[in-house]
């Protein structure tokens, strides 16, 4: 099937305005008759739930944490982009659009990206009005910094805690609606199934994580804003509870999964210290504004204290390879460059898996206090984890899985191929192509939540009669039975290996064979080993406790079971995409200098997978990508 993204046509700068005008409206008095389910209350879901509630819809919102304030958006450090051009350095909506298309290695839809760039400015205004304490300069104006893949300063920030402050802004708007009674919040719920009635999304099945009860909720539309899936690598910068579960359950009910192989490996994370490690910690990209990446030129110098290695014996490899972007080369490129140095035997620290991020020049130029003001909390975090002082000794960094560009397929209205199912934020695939630029995920989450879905969902709801399906419908009963059956199966295996052991093993396979460098061979290895591991899981996993209580072992088992299926799809997608683009690097497809080689003649499309039943091959559908405003070109940052 050829998929249609239903993008508006005509001059790109008019597309969103025209589309908004063309969308049907729900009359204000009728809005309260419609119920919308919002799964996830991070930046995307929190902003959306608050905005829809304010419009007058009846919203039910869900999250697995004990409060919407704790979604993983909270961990974003560096900042959020917008095309304000406050510094007068040449930014514009067009430039943000262009940078995002190019940054994504020409694998995203133009119209969606244009809209994102267009509404980016409204986001900053909205957050300021909510009381988000963005950094300001001494004159009281908003301050900006630079991020990778851009030559302008367009990133707004709140110390090293931008995500926290933006999320608390959305949470405050959400709290206001909860108080007003337009949003009902369901904390500590995990969505474990999507309920589809006659081909239309009409509700969800959740596990109450405190009581273990399986609950049904019906609505006129369902939105998923459930975040990303890079915990499929086990060790990543995501929170422990981040999973593919909500997306995966929707996939198994017919929603297409687009570009699962586009995963982002972030170049600057604290290297792994041991096998027991449960997660990896990111050090914000903003550090590359003032930190310089290097490794020793000579292997003999590896054992030396970094300060004993003179400047001429250091290889500032990003500045050498990409002189015009230098240390601010985009993430995919910076990560591969770090791996290259380490593969060449010049990596620093334990196991030779590390590069230096050195602030000494900036400290000399600006003083330690300026650096402390800019990044103090990051240095503190680094020291807590490594016991090393980043002001005195360069930090050690290594790439780690961080973000998923792939996600459920959606059209321009953020609606999946299942009518009534909308997908927002990191959970959808829409705007970042094969690589996301720094500070653009927060922008996307809030764009989707505040400024896109409030319009587009109205266009859908205006076409359906409210309240036609309730939880009395047999599909809900069946879903509850399925979810209960699944949990009981997990609890009854009583094997010998723990859930964490399986997850570590899967993560190892994913990182080794489907991480920063992928080959036909390595992917075929995974396509054999993952099904075998999954089979072993269902025979030999040990899950303690019962289903009728707070049971974290059971929660983890369910998430791991889904990753064991999803990992295979990710590898299958990576296997079929015989090109390198953005975060997807196939070693067979590279230029002589090691840069990624795209194949626009054969792969200039979105690859969306359809579930065909357990044990059956999924079917690939394609949505061709057209570039009418930006020329398809080799992406160069040299």
């Amino acid at each position: 099937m050829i998929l249609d993204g239903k993008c508006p046509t005509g001059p790109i700068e008019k597309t969103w305005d025209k589309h908004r005008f063309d969308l049907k409206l729900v009359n204000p008095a009728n809005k309260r008759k419609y119920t919308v389910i919002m799964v996830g209350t991070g930046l995307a879901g929190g902003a959306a739930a608050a905005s829809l509630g304010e419009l007058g819809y009846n919203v039910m919102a869900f999250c697995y944490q004990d409060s919407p304030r704790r979604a993983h958006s909270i961990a974003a450090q560096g900042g959020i982009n917008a095309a304000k051009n406050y510094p007068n350095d040449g930014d514009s909506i067009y430039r943000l659009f262009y940078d995002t298309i190019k940054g994504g290695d020409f694998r995203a839809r133009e119209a969606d990206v244009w809209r994102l760039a267009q509404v980016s400015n409204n986001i900053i205004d909205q957050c300021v009005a909510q009381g988000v304490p963005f950094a300001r300069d001494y004159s009281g104006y908003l301050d900006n910094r630079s991020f990778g893949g851009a030559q302008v300063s367009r990133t707004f920030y709140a110390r090293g805690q931008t995500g926290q402050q933006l999320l608390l802004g959305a949470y405050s708007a959400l709290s206001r609606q909860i108080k007003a009674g337009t949003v009902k919040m369901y904390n500590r719920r995990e969505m474990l199934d999507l309920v589809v009635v006659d081909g239309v999304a009409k509700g969800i099945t959740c596990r109450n994580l405190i009581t273990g009860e399986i609950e049904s909720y019906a609505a006129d539309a369902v939105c998923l804003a459930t975040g990303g899936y890079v915990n499929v690598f086990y060790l990543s910068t995501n929170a422990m509870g981040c999973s593919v579960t909500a997306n995966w359950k929707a996939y198994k009910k017919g929603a297409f999964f687009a570009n699962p192989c586009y995963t982002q490996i972030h170049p600057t994370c604290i290297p792994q210290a041991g096998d027991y490690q449960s997660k990896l910690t990111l050090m914000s990209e903003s550090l590359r504004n003032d930190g310089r990446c290097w490794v020793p030129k000579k292997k003999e110098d590896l054992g030396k204290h970094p300060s004993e290695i003179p400047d001429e014996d250091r290889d500032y490899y990003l500045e050498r390879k990409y002189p015009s972007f230098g240390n601010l080369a985009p993430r995919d490129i910076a990560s591969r460059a770090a791996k290259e140095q380490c593969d060449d035997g010049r990596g620093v620290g334990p196991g030779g898996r590390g590069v230096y991020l050195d602030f000494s020049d900036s400290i000399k130029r600006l003083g330690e206090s300026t650096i402390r003001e800019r990044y103090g909390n990051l240095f503190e975090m680094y020291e807590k984890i490594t016991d090393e002082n980043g002001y005195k000794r360069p930090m050690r960094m290594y790439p780690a899985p961080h973000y998923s560009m792939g996600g459920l397929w959606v059209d321009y209205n953020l609606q999946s191929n299942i009518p009534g199912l909308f997908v927002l934020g990191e959970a959808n695939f829409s705007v970042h192509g094969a690589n996301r630029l720094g500070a653009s995920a927060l922008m996307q989450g809030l764009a989707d939540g505040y400024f896109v879905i409030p319009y587009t969902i109205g266009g859908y709801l205006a076409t359906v009669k409210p309240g036609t399906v309730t939880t009395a419908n047999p599909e809900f009963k069946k879903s509850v039975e399925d979810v209960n059956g699944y949990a009981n199966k997990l609890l009854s295996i009583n094997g010998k290996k723990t859930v964490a052991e399986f997850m570590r093993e899967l993560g190892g396979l994913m990182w080794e064979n489907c991480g920063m460098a992928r080959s036909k061979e390595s992917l075929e290895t995974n396509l054999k080993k993952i099904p075998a591991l999954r089979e072993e899981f269902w025979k030999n996993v040990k899950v303690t406790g019962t289903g009728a209580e707070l049971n974290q072992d059971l929660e983890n088992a369910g998430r791991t079971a889904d990753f064991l299926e999803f990992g295979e799809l990710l590898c299958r997608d990576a296997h079929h995409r015989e090109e390198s683009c953005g975060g997807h690097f196939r070693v067979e497809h590279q230029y002589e200098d090691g840069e990624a080689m795209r194949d626009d003649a054969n792969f200039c499309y979105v690859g969306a997978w359809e579930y065909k039943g357990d044990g059956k091959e999924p079917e690939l559908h394609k949505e061709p990508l057209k570039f009418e405003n930006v020329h398809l070109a080799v992406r160069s940052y040299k």
Partner: protein
Amino acid sequence: MSDHKTMTLTLIVWRQKGPNAPGKFETYTAKGITEHHSFLEMLDVVNEDLIKSGKEPIVFDHDCREGICGMCSQVINGVPHGGQERTTVCQLHMRKFKDGDTIYIEPWRAKAFPIHKDLVVDRSAYDTIIQAGGYTSCHTGGVPDGNAVLIPKPDADYAMDAAECIGCGACAAACPNSSAMLFTSAKVAQLAALPQGKAEAAERVKNMLETMQECGFGNCSNHYECQAACPKGVNVKFIAKLNREYLKSLAS
């Protein structure tokens, strides 16, 4: 920084089946722990052992494991978050402990935070306090340009200092009166310092304070245990600010 040395520790952990079940301390041994393990990774090791021997693992809240989500919540040797300055439990590392140490681990203890199970408590009262007024009542869309209203840097910095709060609940857990004053004041002070928050300042402080009391938190009698326990360094000066705002609201 050698990984060769490992530690063995004795853990004395609060176990409680449910909100109404009686709880008790159980003793466990944590073996093979290095100085690089975080406190929660140390508990992961213990839980893996428990699961393998068919016992139920210790249930505890956590998510980001990088000190920002506010989910982790344990009282370690009597101190919420374990007593390292400006550090959440998840950021506490085992290099702060010695081989052979005995460690007591308990949940937050406060009337307004009932225990769900083991170390997991119900902190929804903090959400209720925010719902009482911890926001500006702006609509989505239709707001002025971000630079239309200038905010002097000291005010923006002051607001940001207050906004550091992660809503973890350690302040109430540390307070002899189980007061949520540090938490409440942080939000009141953040919004009162900004022009965008001033219009509703009087209503906000009244409603939030009232709600705090209704939720079952005690009053502040200046012990400052909250500030000592706070992993984000939220300062008690914000409580003074709240009190000033409250007096102002009575006059208005």
